[in-house]
């Protein structure tokens, strides 16, 4: 389980997160929506300390971290509990697909090379890249790179996978293949927090949708409820702008 309590983050005088509370149970898929600048990506990056929160508390599994003065060791342990899929893929450029997936296993989790390789190959096959094991990121399309990114995250067997707008940098025709992979692993009961602009996808895959605006959670609920009958005016405005009406008029 993941519990965020009163997470705050300021860049200088600009307060980006104004005390966010969020609980995600094991196996749950939570989608975070919101306009740009709402703080959703920052919140996600706070969970693995790529962004240092100014205050609050992060709890993942058996680890509980006070954001005021965490030690290096605590941050390291926190990062060991999550994995991230980046908007810009961020594959290790000098490593092949299979090496990318193996890297965390071998270096961080100290899994013997042979075994790490075997697991990595399996995962790459699972995301449909069994034929690209030895390709470098520069030789892969955006969609393929992102699928390697997902395999890399899966390999770590984390408590939660954080998806930071995983399809925003992709050509439209490549979005489908990546969403298909995420859909597939969502069904396997892996805990996921997904920041996305893909409304249909969020509605279909998520157990719960969180709508954020201006550094605060405006509203959260089951996707059907939130998309069909949002309680807050702000949510309604956002959804109207984001989705063609036809999709949700029943």
């Amino acid at each position: 389980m993941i519990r965020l309590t009163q997470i705050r983050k300021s860049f200088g005088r600009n307060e980006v997160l104004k005390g966010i509370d969020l609980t995600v149970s094991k196996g749950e898929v939570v989608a975070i929506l919101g306009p740009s600048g709402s703080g959703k990506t920052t919140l996600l990056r706070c969970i693995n300390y790529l962004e240092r929160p100014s205050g609050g508390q992060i709890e993942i599994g058996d680890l509980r971290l006070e954001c005021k003065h965490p030690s290096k060791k605590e941050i390291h342990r926190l990062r060991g509990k999550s994995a991230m899929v980046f908007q810009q893929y961020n594959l290790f450029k000098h490593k092949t697909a299979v090496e990318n997936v193996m890297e965390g296993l071998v270096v961080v989790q100290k899994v013997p090379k042979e075994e790490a390789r075997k697991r990595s190959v399996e995962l790459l096959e699972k995301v449909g890249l069994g034929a690209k094991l030895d390709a470098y990121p520069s030789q892969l399309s955006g969609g393929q790179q992102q699928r390697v990114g997902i395999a890399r995250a899966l390999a770590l067997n984390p408590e939660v996978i954080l998806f930071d707008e995983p399809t925003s940098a992709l050509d439209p025709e490549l979005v489908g293949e990546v969403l298909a992979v995420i859909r597939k692993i969502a069904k396997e009961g892996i805990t996921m927090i997904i920041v996305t602009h893909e409304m249909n996808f969020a509605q279909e895959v998520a157990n719960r949708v969180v709508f954020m605006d201006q550094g605060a959670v405006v509203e959260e609920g089951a996707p059907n409820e939130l998309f069909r009958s949002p309680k807050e005016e702000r949510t309604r405005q956002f959804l109207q702008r984001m989705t063609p009406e036809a999709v949700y008029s029943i």
Partner: protein
Amino acid sequence: MKLDPAFIWTAFVQLLSAIPTTLEIAGVSVLCGSLIGTAVALVRIYRVPVLHPIASAYVTFIRGTPMLTHLLLILFGLPMLIDAAAESLGLPFRSVSIPMIGFVYISFSITEGAYMSEVVRSGMLAVNRGQFEAAYAVGMTTPQALRRIVFPQAFAAALPNLSNSTIGMLHATTLAFAASVVDINAKAQIVAATNWKFFEAYIAAALLFWGLTFLIERLTALLEKRINSYNRGGVA
């Protein structure tokens, strides 16, 4: 005045004996310079308290003064320091027992370290921030991320500058004559001193340097091709 082409060859053959000295000086300085440079670059990039201003001062002072001056300062200053220290500690050691080439190594390494720190820094800054974030996200510590992810890519990015620096150092070894160390250039002077055919001797030295430089260029080209294969792109 008449050119004596035959003597160019004679001199060239005699100069070969000075190659090891030249390569040793260049090799040691580049190696130690890289280590110093990497340390200095890290201190500056991470803004390590206390060390950061010292590192900056080191780089600006060394790059702001000529290499020959460094050598002379070390040559005259370091023995005084060593002797004073040995004396106050009651050790029998004296600086005279240090071979001159030792001072050359020290001085050139210090010089090279300052220039190299900028080469390393530029290489590291060329690595996308996302690479670091991905390394952290899979759970690596900073030293792991540096060693496994950032340095290999930084090295590839810095390679052209690195080869430039190495070639510069190879040529700068000629300054070692100021410490009475016989490198290729000093050897040319010695060879010519017997018959005053300085022009021929220096032509031979120039050709020899050119040959060595050419070797370094070829080596880096090979290395670059190998190391940058991951950047080649195209769908596999």
